[in-house]
């Protein structure tokens, strides 16, 4: 047996002797790694699936010619297709619409109009596959439609008798086969059919180009001289956009998942600190026999690393299984919305797995660092006499203030690459600094209490008061997990409150109407005659028309929404963050959402260039910034009259209706549908919503987005409570002689258990108070730094005091209950006999 194996044998003997304690530490690492890895795998699988779907739909062109806003004239196609450097040119018209499923619910559907004769060279996955019995030329039939697997699953062609109606268009289409494109629900039609159905005659969304081998791409583009309103796009742009769109949400969710690992590190610390304390005589003997301080440190570090390796291996396996289950049950979207509607296959990448394994090992080693230091520092001779140094030495007094100061400094660092990369370490420093200050906090709070005359209380209070570092070991995990849970609770509560207030401002009307299929890239216009009819309805007192157009300002970013609406009193119409600046003479006003202001630098007092449909660009003066939780990529509000003047567009896509006194919404809804039918439109062509329904839908989406957060909070709290139980149980074992003495002195079993419960309750109370303070501090970082830097929106801080109090109460009660369970071993017969020393 070598020296190393002999020392490791001691470690394994310790594990066998305390299997539950070891299992607790390993389990904490397992859970932390599993959650982090699962979230990572789900997001990566979803992104891969999305990328594959986009590549299948978009094909593999060398270039794409796209409209900067809306569509462009198909005349460009003729010129491009005949260019000698172009090997293949595929015209595409994309329309976002919806169809009704068997239950009458809307199913979003992307309709892609293609020329099947040229499509195969560029996007073979999009080539329509006629069904058995169909003419093979059906793919050229403008009345035929071909669905992908997701669309077939949601719309069930057989139940529909083989035909499909699309909202925003007239007539029905024959379902003639399928396409092999993966991803969300999609339909392919002949391009002429789409142009006719959606009144886009002579219009295209893009042209996909394959150049001849060896063609000079730049020379080609220079010669092409694209008209205004058409730009060159790289084929991978769509995936990059979704990647950018979802990156902040994915990063935040991954960091959140690491909360469990962070809490797990504290559990490892608690377990190893007590293990080292119990093994002091053993370590002291090894020291006397020649094991140097650095070697004792290395031994404990090696032990924690082994715990990490074991926990990480099991955690990766569990995380992969969780990811597979989640992908099967939830699809690829964990609440951010970017991957809704796709069903990705599990894709585990080795690099990600290695990273999370290393994080798990790192967390374990971090948890073992301080106990390892204690093992190195003990004086062997003194320890053998039982006069060893404090089992859990206090950190130097400068550690806590330094960490807290570092947290404050990091909180003021701006976003790095559009992510709050400095804010996360700020949160970690806050938590670590708070826990380092826990002994001081215990002394400060409990030091004020007078010595008790109640014997069990005296014993418990004095122990916690004079050995605060041991109390720190017990409650460090609960402080961290409670602080993080409170921070998330406050952040989610603040967001919800702010969103509800925002909805109050942006939904002042009684009913909202828009064309079905709106919400995608294009917002269909409502027929002017229909708007007139609606305004004349007896139940309608007032109508406001809005136009929402999606405009591409930066090709690397998703389009922004331009909202043209009456803005005679912008402070009343928009949730402005501050009073609008005076409008300089000759300027046209615009109001930038927070996201727009952040992403495009459009602060109040600056100018923004807006591309208009038709190609020209207009310069607008930004008067104010407004809060918008609906459009993460930015929105620009402009007075409707200015839009009409600049864009020559008087159409409306949305209507806000104020009802006449006494008019019921049910009757007005019926009148609206009748008005649509009178105009020859399908009644389902209108989407009608009441503010209460919009509010309920918004809250449902919001709650789903944060459902994962709630689960992660609960797991972190669970790990923290587990930590209390594990460390208390270990302490009970270590203090058997002390408890035996209490029994000899006449403490009843209940009183001995009461001492343990009182100690855990006292430590937990101080820990909970500190956890609340830390949690509120972390919530300020989340609300004021992480959210704005991640999602470009702000919110008002709102502390849900009743929920917070309930959470703290539940944690304290659980800590006391955990203490009671751990104390069962404190009053048994074996503790009575433990006082005996047989020489």
């Amino acid at each position, binding site marked *: 047996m070598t020296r190393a194996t002999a020392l490791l044998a001691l470690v394994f003997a310790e594990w066998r002797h305390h299997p539950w304690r070891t299992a607790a530490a390993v389990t904490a690492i397992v859970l932390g790694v599993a959650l982090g890895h699962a979230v990572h795998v789900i997001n990566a699988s979803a992104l891969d699936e999305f990328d594959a779907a986009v590549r299948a739909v978009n094909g593999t062109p060398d270039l794409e010619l796209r409209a900067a806003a809306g569509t462009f004239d198909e005349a460009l196609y003729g010129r491009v297709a005949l260019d000698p450097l172009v090997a293949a040119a595929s015209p595409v018209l994309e329309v976002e619409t919806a169809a009704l499923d068997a239950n009458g619910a809307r199913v979003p559907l992307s309709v892609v109009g293609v020329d099947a004769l040229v499509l195969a060279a560029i996007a073979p996955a999009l080539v329509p596959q006629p069904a058995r019995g169909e003419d093979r030329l059906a793919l050229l039939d403008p009345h035929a439609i071909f669905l992908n697997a997701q669309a077939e699953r949601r719309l069930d062609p057989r139940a529909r008798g083989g035909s499909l109606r699309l909202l925003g268009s007239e007539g029905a289409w024959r379902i003639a086969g399928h396409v092999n494109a993966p991803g969300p629900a999609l339909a392919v039609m002949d391009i002429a059919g789409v142009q006719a159905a959606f009144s886009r005659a002579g219009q295209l969304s893009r042209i996909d180009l394959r150049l001849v081998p060896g063609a000079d791409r730049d020379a080609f583009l220079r010669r092409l001289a694209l008209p205004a309103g058409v730009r060159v796009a790289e084929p991978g742009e769509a995936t990059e956009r979704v990647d950018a769109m979802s990156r902040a949400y994915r990063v935040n969710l991954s960091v959140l998942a690491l909360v469990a690992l962070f809490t797990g590190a504290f559990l490892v610390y608690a377990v190893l600190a007590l293990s080292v304390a119990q093994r002091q005589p053993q370590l002291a003997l090894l020291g006397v026999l020649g094991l140097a301080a650095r070697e004792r440190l290395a031994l404990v570090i090696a032990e924690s690393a082994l715990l990490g390796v074991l926990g990480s291996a099991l955690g990766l396996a569990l995380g992969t299984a969780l990811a597979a289950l989640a992908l099967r049950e939830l699809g690829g979207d964990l609440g951010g919305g970017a991957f809704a509607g796709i069903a990705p296959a599990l894709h585990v990448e080795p690099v990600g797995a290695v990273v999370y394994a290393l994080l798990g090992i790192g967390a374990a080693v971090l948890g073992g660092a301080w106990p390892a230091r204690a093992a190195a520092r003990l004086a062997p001779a003194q320890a053998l006499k039982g006069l060893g140094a404090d089992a859990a030495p206090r950190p130097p007094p400068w550690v806590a203030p330094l960490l807290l100061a570092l947290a404050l400094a990091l909180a003021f660092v701006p976003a790095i690459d559009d992510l709050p990369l400095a804010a996360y370490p700020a949160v970690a420093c806050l938590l670590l600094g708070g826990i380092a200050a826990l002994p001081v906090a215990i002394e400060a709070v409990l030091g004020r209490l007078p010595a008790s005359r109640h014997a069990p209380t*005296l014993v418990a209070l004095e122990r916690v*008061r*004079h050995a605060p570092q041991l109390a720190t070991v017990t409650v460090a995990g609960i402080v961290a997990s409670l602080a993080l849970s409170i921070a998330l609770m406050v952040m989610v509560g603040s967001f919800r409150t702010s969103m509800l207030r925002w909805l109050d401002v942006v939904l002042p009307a009684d009913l909202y109407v828009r064309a079905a299929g709106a919400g995608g890239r294009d917002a269909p216009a409502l027929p002017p005659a229909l708007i007139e009819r609606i305004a004349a309805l007896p139940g309608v007192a007032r109508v406001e028309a809005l136009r929402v157009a999606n405009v591409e300002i930066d090709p690397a970013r998703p389009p922004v929404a331009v909202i043209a609406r009456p803005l005679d009193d912008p402070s009343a119409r928009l949730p402005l963050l501050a009073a609008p600046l005076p409008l300089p003479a000759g300027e046209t006003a615009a109001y930038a959402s927070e996201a727009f202001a952040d992403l495009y630098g459009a602060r109040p007092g600056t100018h923004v260039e807006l591309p208009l449909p038709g190609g020209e660009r207009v310069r607008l003066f930004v008067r104010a910034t407004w809060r918008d939780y609906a459009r993460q990529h930015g929105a620009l509000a402009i007075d409707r009259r200015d839009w009409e003047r600049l864009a020559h567009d008087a159409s409306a896509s949305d209507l806000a209706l104020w009802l006449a006194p006494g008019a019921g919404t049910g009757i007005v809804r019926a009148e609206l549908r009748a008005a649509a039918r009178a105009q020859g439109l399908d009644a389902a062509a209108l989407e009608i919503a009441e503010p209460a329904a919009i509010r309920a839908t918004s809250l449902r989406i919001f709650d789903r987005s944060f459902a994962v957060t709630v689960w992660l909070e609960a797991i972190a709290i669970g790990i923290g409570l587990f930590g209390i139980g594990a460390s208390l149980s270990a302490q009970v074992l270590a203090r058997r002689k002390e408890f035996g*003495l209490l029994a000899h002195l*006449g403490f009843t079993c209940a009183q001995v258990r009461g001492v343990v419960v009182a100690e855990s309750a006292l430590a937990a109370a101080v820990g909970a108070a500190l956890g609340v303070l830390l949690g509120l501090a972390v919530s300020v970082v989340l609300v004021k730094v992480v959210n704005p830097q991640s999602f470009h929106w702000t919110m008002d801080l709102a502390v849900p005091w009743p929920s917070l109090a309930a959470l703290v109460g539940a944690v304290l009660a659980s800590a006391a209950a955990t203490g009671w369970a751990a104390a069962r071993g404190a009053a048994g017969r074996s503790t*009575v006999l433990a006082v005996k020393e*047989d*020489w």
Partner: protein
Amino acid sequence: MALLEVEALAKRYGDVTVFERVSLALERGEFVAILGESGVGKSTLLNCVAALDRWDAGRIRLDGTDLGGLDERAQAHLRRTELGFVFQAFHVLPHLTVAQNVALPLLLQDRPDAARVQDVLAAVGLGSLAERLPRTLSGGQLQRVAIARAVVHRPPLILADEPTGNLDPRTAERVLALLREQVRSESAACLLATHSRAAAAQADRVVTLTPGGIVEGGA
């Protein structure tokens, strides 16, 4: 009636008999040493007398009370009011001051008495160390704290289990003398378990515990 009456006591752990047919009587104020080799069951006998361990045969009466019929709470009450303990390994609570350690038996009976605590500490020579924590005291000082704690509540019976086992001979002699002096001054009886003849010499009477029972006199 004797203060302590042990009649034909037997203790077994499974098939192993620790002792049997142990009979012993202790009068008030009497200092009796129980001699015996290590492992013969001296501590077990003391634990039985303290109702901390169960026995398999026989009877124990303390001040007229049959210990066999007491429930756990009554046993705890008995230890609180009728007994004082001194251990080989001192066993003072590390996070209580010297005064708080000594006061514990009084606090358990809801009879705080700071003056009594101070008197007892002075009597054992630790009056100036009342506010010190145990880790700053020597072994001899710690054992004096234990003695003070054992007598502070004036129990009729002190049980001392190898009280000098961790002390050097000179300190051991002083501690034993102190124990004897305190026992006498408080009019308590004392049952001292020891394997040291020198320690046993301090007692009024010496008995020897053997597996087969008690033998009067040193073995």
